[in-house]
């Protein structure tokens, strides 16, 4: 019963939205907003030109590269900062200062540093994901109940075994939540990052369609693609939260 509702109700909402959208465009005869039919036609055109696949692939590549780098560096740094007091005291103010700077503010510099290449958007995506990952991982280590660590020590675990058998499993659920949020941010940063320095990808599609001929049907088609892929990525990452060894950390069931 619940499962069926979880599929039918969202579809119903989407249907209502599409219908409302379609008729408001038709009735107002607006020229600056496409109807759903125009958008579908735009998507078909993109597919026909072979751009749909190649732009999506390029965007996914940039996000995976920037995001993976952020995970590979951010998780270990977060663990170190969560566990050892001195490094945390030393660099935490710096991190808290860097964090509110939007990755987009780095755009001018990244263009100078990396030129017209994939590296510029990858760098911006990395920045967008890195700080949230560091901070959430650090907090997850700090929030490990001291009892778990005491019990681990009591049973005679070496520091390495303590990390592997206690700290790591204890922080895993929170770290996964942090990774999921960071992936969302990476995907948001992507669009803006692709508006500079590159000539492919979904962000480029949006800015290029507007600049070259005011093709608002393609602009909205690009937005739609970004939304759909973002949803798929989130669903994919959420699946990890169902693993038995981390399920205890998610009390939503």
């Amino acid at each position, binding site marked *: 019963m619940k499962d069926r509702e979880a599929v039918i109700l969202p579809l119903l909402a989407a249907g209502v939205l599409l219908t409302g959208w379609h008729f408001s465009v038709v009735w107002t005869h607006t020229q600056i907003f496409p109807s759903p039919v125009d958008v579908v036609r735009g998507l078909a055109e993109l597919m026909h030109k072979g751009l749909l696949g190649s732009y999506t692939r390029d965007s996914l590549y940039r996000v995976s590269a920037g995001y993976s780098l952020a995970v590979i560096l951010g998780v270990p740094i977060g663990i170190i900062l969560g566990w050892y007091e001195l490094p945390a005291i030393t660099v935490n103010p710096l991190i808290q200062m860097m964090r509110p700077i939007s990755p987009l503010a780095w755009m001018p510099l990244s263009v100078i540093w990396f030129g017209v290449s994939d590296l510029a958007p990858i760098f911006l995506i990395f920045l967008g994901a890195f700080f949230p990952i560091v901070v959430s991982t650090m907090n997850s280590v700090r929030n490990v*109940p001291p009892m778990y660590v005491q019990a681990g020590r*009591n049973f005679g675990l070496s520091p390495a075994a303590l990390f592997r058998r206690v700290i790591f499993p204890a922080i895993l659920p929170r770290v996964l939540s942090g990774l999921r949020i960071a992936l969302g941010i990476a995907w948001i940063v992507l669009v803006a990052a692709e508006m500079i320095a590159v000539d492919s990808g979904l962000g480029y599609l949006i800015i290029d369609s507007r600049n070259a001929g005011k093709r608002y049907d393609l602009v909205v088609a690009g937005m739609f693609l970004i939304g759909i892929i973002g949803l798929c990525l989130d669903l994919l990452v959420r699946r990890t939260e169902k693993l038995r*060894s981390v399920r*205890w950390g998610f009390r939503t069931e």
Partner: protein
Amino acid sequence: MTTKSVAVVAELATEVKVSVRNLDMIFQTDGKSVSVLERISLDIREGEFVCLLGPSGCGKSTLLNILAGFLRPTSGEVTIQGEPVRGPDPRRIFVFQERGVFPWLTVEGNIGFGLFKLPKEERAARVAYYIKMVGLEGFEQAYPSELSGGMKQRLEVARALAVNPDVLFLDEPFGALDSITRLLMRGELLRIWETERKTILFVTHDIEESVQLADRVVVMSARPATIRRVVDIDIPHPRDLSSRRYIELRDGIFEEIGLAHKV
């Protein structure tokens, strides 16, 4: 009444297991120093069941943490079998309220947690034995979130017993349980103690609980905690909770703490 005065040195009939000498503990917080434990001296014999009884926040848990090696005293000395305590040790296991079980491991995984040095078959046999002892058969693959509070508590006791320690430290282990489960758990603990004969140090603020369980009750004062009196509970198990001797000992402790035994 067979109560004895402060700093009782055990009779030499059985071996002294845990020895505490002139222990002081002072915490530094916000530039102020707070004295938590003052001149604690105590001997605990091998296989003895001792309750540390005192009001909430008096420092009895601090004392237990020092004995377990998690905290260092400001001054004084703790020796276990003649060896000074320098840190936590698998021969002496600390049992938290059920919150100490690892939620990412199954019942089996938790009980086997400390057995990483044993070969696989031996570990499996040990795990099975203790699952049976604490009555968790059928829940081997269950995760702690699927267990009741009492079951989690038994799981933590089983995890501690599995590594075959000499001493168990229990810090208000039944404090979070409902009163019926708490009564059942006391019976379980006594049954396990009678088969395994570990030395047990049990912290509680429940006078009835201490008189039901312990061979000796160490009555502590409010902070800074000192030992007010050590009471011998000379009633054989199973104890009749309406016997004259039980009521006499219990009321003696109520009086010692300065509580009118009336509601």
